């Protein structure tokens, strides 16, 4: 028995020494995939002699993005400001409404179904309405993003606030805690993981909705840039605007996820 231990131990140590570090092990497959996609992309252009209005070289897209970086940065800023203002307003609104619903269940019975009915229509269908009422500026996008985000946050916050152990609530109440104290000390901390998962999903919705609404009607923003360039047949510009919107959303999503992990360490 001890023989076996002696013979296996050195091999294991050797294997550990040879093994690639963990970050590299999880990094190379997606990097390889990116390389393959890039090769297929360039290969398709070369093999089929695709003109750049069908498929531009990745380098061309980057080149145009660098060349237009001022315009692109301005459009990105507009979209990010629209989606983030709607996101912040909607998160606050969703959270406040959830707390009101938990404190006054009767109100929830009446108003939650209304919220559900309004949100059973895809939010983009309200786009034309928002643009007629509020114009093609940022206001129409912010209002719709606010409504969409508030719904996602509300549903998640309600689930979280209700998940509190009723016995824990009873215990605190026996010690003379008011409804407000129970909410602040017990229900909200317990609901935090659910609230943050709602916040994470909602930030994605916020960016997508802002971009899509800008395609419908706007005078600035990445969605507007995509729409405008396709109408003007400037295809490489369309690609660069799409790429910018993808990058901007990814950055925002990663930031929100990171904040969520830092603040809800107990989940």
């Amino acid at each position, binding site marked *: 028995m001890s023989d076996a231990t002696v013979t296996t131990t050195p091999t294991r140590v050797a294997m550990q020494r040879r093994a690639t570090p963990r970050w590299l092990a*999880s990094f190379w*497959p*997606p990097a*390889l*995939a990116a390389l*393959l996609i890039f090769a297929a992309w360039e290969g398709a252009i070369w093999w089929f002699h695709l003109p750049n*209005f*069908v498929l531009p070289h990745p380098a061309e897209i980057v080149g145009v993005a660098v060349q237009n970086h001022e315009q692109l940065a301005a459009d990105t800023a507009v979209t990010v400001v629209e989606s983030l203002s709607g996101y912040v307003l909607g998160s606050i609104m969703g959270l406040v409404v959830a707390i009101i619903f938990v404190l006054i269940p009767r109100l929830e*019975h*009446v108003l*939650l*179904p*209304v919220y*559900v*009915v309004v949100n*059973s*229509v*895809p939010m*983009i*269908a*309200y*786009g*034309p*309405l928002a*643009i*007629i009422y509020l114009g093609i500026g940022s206001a129409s996008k912010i209002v719709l993003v606010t409504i969409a985000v508030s719904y996602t946050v509300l549903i998640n916050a309600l689930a979280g606030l209700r998940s509190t152990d009723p016995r824990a609530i009873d215990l605190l109440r026996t010690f003379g805690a008011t409804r407000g104290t129970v909410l602040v000390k017990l229900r909200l901390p317990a609901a935090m993981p659910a609230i943050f998962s709602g916040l994470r999903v909602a930030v*994605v919705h916020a*960016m*997508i909705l802002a*971009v*899509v609404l800008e*395609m*419908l*009607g706007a005078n600035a923003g*990445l*969605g507007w840039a*995509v*729409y405008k360039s*396709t109408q003007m047949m400037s*295809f490489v510009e*369309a*690609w660069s*605007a*799409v790429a910018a*919107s*993808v990058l901007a*959303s*990814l950055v925002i*999503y990663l930031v929100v996820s990171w904040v969520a992990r830092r603040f809800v360490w107990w989940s």
Partner: protein
Amino acid sequence: MDAPAVRARLLPQLLALPALLLLWEASVRGLAVSPDKLPAPSTVLATIWAAHTIFAQAVGTTLYEAVLGLVAGTLFGVASGVLFSRFRLLERMFLPYFVASQAVPIIAFGAIIILWFGNGVVSKALIAFYLSFFPVAVNTLVGIHGVPAEQVGLLRTFGASPLTILLRLQLPAALPAIFTAVRLGASLALVGAIVGEWFGATRGLGVVLLTAMYEYRMTYLWAGILLTGLTGVALFVVIAALQRRIAWWQVET
């Protein structure tokens, strides 16, 4: 839950829509709001009825595009989920992109799809396809991974082939997760088809919404919103019914 409790929860939900419509109708009539600002529900319904062939064609077109894309997206999504579960390297190479695709507005690529495939049904179906494809693939993989290894081992001991294990154990076990993704995919497909129609299509719900906006036709616009909502709900109901038929052993909660 006992019957009165169920009634107490369901009743407000069932009454919400009629109550909302009644309140809306009453306030528009009572305050004499101009239909150019906010049309009453009865006006909207009358408009739909008066032009029902046009609206039916719009709903039919959009639904066709969305369903075509959704069906193709579901089939491809399940297939690639299975492929990922078979080949670990493929999963590690491409899954990060599939997951990331759900955090970015890939719908913006729709503009490029229209450039490639023109204004017809194909390009909208393609948008609906790639929007529904990603979540279905991810959830298929998650569902297959969720099967306990002992169960797979047991079947293997009985001499089951990998295909049998897939069809008899792994896919059935993954069905709830797959259906969750299909439901999400359905709403994405509908949105994708509608947004695709904004780029110069001639028929469909997206066209109804867009022309109503350009021509400031409020009643027409509300008809479009209502029909879009109903189309979405109809898709949802059909998928839920399919789930009850196909994954009937699953306990509904």
